[in-house]
């Protein structure tokens, strides 16, 4: 516990992330106003002038939209990272158990996937299957697969050289069993850290996709589309551009700090 308290990065990250998750969950049950309720008479009101954070061009409550946006952004990113991490880890540990030619082929495939930024693959997917949450999740998840495959391959390769693994091989355990009993438990810390960090990246990407109109369709409020809508009102209502961006930045910063802090906590060897 004292080691946790001595790490301000971890603590700040944890507080921000918990706050974000709470806001997202609360938004499922309660928001100050309905985020889709239009009140044209109250349009473009500054923060505190009407509602806590003002209103947009349709008189919708910005605070409520940000709250629901937190849920939309977080749940999309979480799903995408969960899919990417699961597939990537599976590929990584499988390749580590096989080595040889499989490793060369899979790593080359990872290079190829990694070469297409998720924004572009979402655009490509969007052209064919239409844009929306599903497209965004797939595009982000596909990009995450090589990230986790590379990470777990590297980490798993190290574990495969350990004495206890050699002993397990000597005892006649098969590679699948060794992967589940020795490899995965020993690399899980690194995967958890990476999930946290990649969540931040996923939130950034999701915001970018929504900004381009490739995320969840309206009227569901997303941080990215709020920013996109705000572009027309930069002069008269700059807070519309400030607040959603601030929400994204704080969320990503919180997750990054939590990830960094977790890395220090879980892996004391790597503290450069």
């Amino acid at each position: 516990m004292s080691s946790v308290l001595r790490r301000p990065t971890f603590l700040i990250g944890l507080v921000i992330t918990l706050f974000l998750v709470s806001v997202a969950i609360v938004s499922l049950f309660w928001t100050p106003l309905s985020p889709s309720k239009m009140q044209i008479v109250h349009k473009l009101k500054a923060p505190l002038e009407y509602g806590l954070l003002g209103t947009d061009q349709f008189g919708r409550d910005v605070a409520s939209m940000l709250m629901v946006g937190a849920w939309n952004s977080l749940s999309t990113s979480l799903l995408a990272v969960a899919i990417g991490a699961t597939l990537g880890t599976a590929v990584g540990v499988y390749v580590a158990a096989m080595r040889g030619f499989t490793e060369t082929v899979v790593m080359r495939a990872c290079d190829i996937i990694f070469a297409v930024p998720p924004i572009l693959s979402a655009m490509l997917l969007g052209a064919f299957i239409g844009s929306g949450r599903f497209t965004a999740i797939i595009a982000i998840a596909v990009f995450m697969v090589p990230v986790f495959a590379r990470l777990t391959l590297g980490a798993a390769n190290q574990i495969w050289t350990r004495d206890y693994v050699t002993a397990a091989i000597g005892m006649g355990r098969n590679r699948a069993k060794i992967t589940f009993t020795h490899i995965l438990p020993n690399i899980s810390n690194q995967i958890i850290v990476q999930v946290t960090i990649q969540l931040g990246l996923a939130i950034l990407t999701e915001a970018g996709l929504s900004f381009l109109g490739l995320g969840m369709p309206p009227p569901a409020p997303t941080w990215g589309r709020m920013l996109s809508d705000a572009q027309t009102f930069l002069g008269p209502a700059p807070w519309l551009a400030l607040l959603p961006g601030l929400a994204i930045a704080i969320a990503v910063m919180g997750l990054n700090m939590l990830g960094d802090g977790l890395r220090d906590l879980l892996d004391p060897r790597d503290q450069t």
Partner: protein
Amino acid sequence: MITLIARRLAGLIITLLLVSALIFAVMDFLPGDPASVILGTSASADTLAALRQDMGLDQPLVLRYAAWLGGVLQGDLGQSYTYGVPVAGLIAERLAVTIPLAFIAVLLSIVIAIPLGVQAARHQNGLMDVVAGLFSHVSIAVPAFWVGLLLIILFSTVLGWMPAGGFPGWGSGFWAAFQALLLPAVALALPQAGVLTRVTRSAVLEVMNEDFVRTARSKGLSENTALWRHAVPNALIPVVTMLGLQFTFLIAGAVLVENVFNLPGVGRLAFQALAQRDVVVMQDVVLFFAALVIVMNFLVDLAYLIIDPRLRAGVR
């Protein structure tokens, strides 16, 4: 050295071929072929069949890929359906915006990150280190397109110093064109600078404990000379690697930032192609960017060989 480069080059060509085949296959695998995407749902079966034949979509996948690849090798990327001109020309035209934009952004990020990272390492745990840490934490977390919006609010709406967007073209003079690219480049550079600052700091910290830096100090060199002449050049390898790895994100950022600032670059072209369902342009732009990332990583690999003599000696 030559064998090593030749081997990397062969790897590069294979990767490029595979990536083109993959994107081609994905396009084919997705529901709805390009012809129906272009014509929409209201087209008659005859019109659809005619366009399919015109685009060669009635041919088997392998033949289409071979034909397309043959075209690409001769600089023919196909015809845009909305613009009615060759896609190669469209992309080349837009590169006059995207390449300078990316170049200025990378340059800016290096100019910000290397001094900041080096000073942070030199004054480890000092004020400079805290400032650099804060800078990288914040700049990594902010989306480039949001920074773009903030810059527009500050420098165009409030101060009126800079144009809010658009590109006058290089024909209207260097300064006017450069001015139009400056704010977008800053927006694009900031997140990159955050990552680079971090990498520079930890690389310099690591190198500063090496024997050769201690030797440099002990032979009477000042702390600054030892740092800049001996430590920094040796710390540059991870920084160059990170520059290469960040290239994917730079491109993703460029697509967004070009849209914020209304710049007629390749990213904006992709976005317009999506809106107009011009799948040929979409496919070519995605391929182009993917190829760019792969070639960039190849160049970083080569730079690695040049910077680090140890890698030249041993075959990796």
